[in-house]
């Protein structure tokens, strides 16, 4: 014990000296502060991305020579571009539906519900269950003569089983179900941040409910909407489990194709080239959508 005190004293002194030293040197301090997060970002995001980029120019698994063949192969047929296009279509469908549903849900939570927190917890609850298990549950619900069909036929809404499983509709339902909570949260956050007086102000100035929604509520919560859309669109574009389990024979998405290259054929260079093409496509599409849709980058603090 007697030896501990001086040590503690010395450590405290050292800490104090260091912090004084840094305080007088703002650039060094900035460097020290940023070192950890920057290192983390580089290690987790930048380096893997660079490795993937490097792989995409290899002729075979490393060690191998550099080549553009992978890109040539990917772009020379309309096979992969066709799959990317199809993936784009279902991504847009999913995003539009999830955005509308999620926004309506968040809107009613904010405007009409006294138990918003409880309902929000219910919205997030499915996240506690494994993704694959939830997909299996949907297979049970959607299969011919499954839960949905039984319900529809029991209530005499339909007379024959629909058998939605293994169709594009099933894939869409799966996506909507999976991403809805993820989109609802940013929508909810932006709606609670919005000043409710703005709605009164619009009504006061003669705008009816729909006009108010379109000209005030929607634009002032645009940041949240954009975040929600990005959170839905990007994972939908890359997904391969949902379409594999719920989709039929003609629901291939680009994520499944890339997975095949990495897993079945062990053709990482070609898979990496496809992934690079897809990443560039998604980033470009998102940037264009952002520039057209909002002035997110120009305008900070819209929420206030």
């Amino acid at each position, binding site marked *: 014990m007697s030896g501990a005190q001086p040590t503690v004293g010395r450590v405290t002194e050292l800490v104090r000296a260091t912090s004084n030293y840094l305080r007088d040197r703002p650039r060094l301090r900035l460097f020290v502060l940023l070192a950890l997060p920057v290192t983390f970002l580089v290690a987790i995001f930048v380096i893997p991305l660079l490795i993937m980029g490097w792989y995409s120019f290899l002729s075979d698994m490393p060690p191998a020579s550099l080549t553009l063949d992978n890109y040539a192969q990917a772009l020379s047929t309309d096979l992969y571009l066709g799959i990317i296009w199809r993936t784009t279509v279902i991504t847009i469908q999913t995003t539009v539906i999830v955005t509308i549903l999620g926004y309506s849900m968040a809107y009613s939570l904010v405007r009409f519900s006294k138990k918003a927190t409880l309902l929000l917890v219910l919205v997030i609850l499915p996240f506690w269950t494994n993704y694959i298990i939830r997909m299996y549950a949907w297979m049970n619900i959607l299969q011919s003569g499954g839960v949905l069909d039984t319900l529809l036929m029991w209530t005499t809404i339909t007379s024959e089983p629909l058998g939605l499983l293994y169709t594009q509709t099933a894939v869409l339902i799966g996506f909507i179900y999976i991403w809805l909570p993820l989109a609802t949260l940013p929508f909810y956050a932006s709606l609670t941040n919005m000043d409710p007086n703005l709605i009164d102000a619009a009504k006061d100035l003669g705008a009816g409910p729909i006009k108010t929604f379109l000209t005030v509520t929607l634009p002032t919560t645009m940041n949240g909407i954009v975040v929600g859309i990005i959170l839905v669109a990007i994972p939908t574009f890359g997904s391969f489990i949902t379409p594999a389990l719920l989709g039929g024979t003609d629901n291939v998405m680009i994520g499944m194709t890339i997975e095949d290259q990495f897993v079945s054929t062990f053709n990482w260079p070609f898979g990496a080239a496809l992934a690079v093409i897809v990443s560039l496509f998604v980033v470009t599409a998102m940037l264009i959508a952002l520039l057209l849709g909002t002035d997110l980058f120009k305008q900070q603090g819209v929420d*206030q």
Partner: protein
Amino acid sequence: MSIVTVENLVKEFGELVAVDDASFEIEDGEFVSVLGPSGSGKSTILRMIAGFEEPTGGTIVLNGESVVGVPPFHRDVNMVFQNLALFPHLTVADNIAYGLKQSGVPKAERTERIEEMLSVVDLRGYGDRKPEQLSGGEQQRVALARAIVNEPEIVLFDEPLASLDRKLRQHMQVELQRIQAETGITFMYVTHDQEVAVAVSDRMILLNDGRIEQIGTPEELYDDPVSKFVADFIGDVNTFSGTVRNVVDDTATIELLGATVETTIRASQAPMITEGETVAVCIRPSQLSVANGVESGETVEIAGTVENRIYQGDGVTFMIQTDEGRLTVEDEAPYDIGDEVTVTGSWTEAYAFPGGD
């Protein structure tokens, strides 16, 4: 001609009675303040006139037509919100244009009226800016312009100046009066700040606990308050407890601090002031004087010590600690903190209200 007629207005939120049987009229072109402490129901009255709340009982007639049940977007009323509620995603010009667009004013006319309005509120050249790029005072002007550009029957203000510093607030008060005079639009202004209300209003409606205490010009409320609450709220008063000894015509003899004084009873108070009644005697600081610690020969003398002195433009306000509590006195006398003094009053100007201290 009356623009707004409110009769027996009641608003209940569950158990709470926010507005209790309020009736008043507002004339065309008037600048009326609705004054009261927070929670007195003033904002609720405003929101009912705007249409954001529906009354539990009573009627609101706007320009000859009842508006009970009419949604806000169909009322010819505009509001300046407490936090202004400018649309953050729109430019100043688009904020001002919002109401005009809703009522289908063509673009050319809109542009013209926006320009006109920007010059009325002294914001020429600010049309393309976003609200967040403006100062607090400039934002106030935009909010005002957004309301009056629609030329409504009445503009409602929900304490929009509360967040400004004193100097800016005083400046905006003058601006409000100027703009109201220029446009001739009826203003109804809600505030808890009697100074603002007194400064800007033609008439004031003073609320207390959901009920209207008194309606009148600032002078009427100051000179002829109907209750101790009004007297206390509009300007300062010093209050003493007394007992009525005698009432002759409009003069009451009241036993006060071991002596008797005579005060003039206001017509409105007369029926309530009867012999033997305990009353609150309220006297304005200007009606009290400070004298040296020697006996003045007045019937009521209160000994005390100068606790504080505050110079104002036209005199000195003394805080004097006495056995009757701390008194506020306005005088020109040359006393310093710590001086032993005697306070006397011209009691005929004091008010007596039923109910004691």
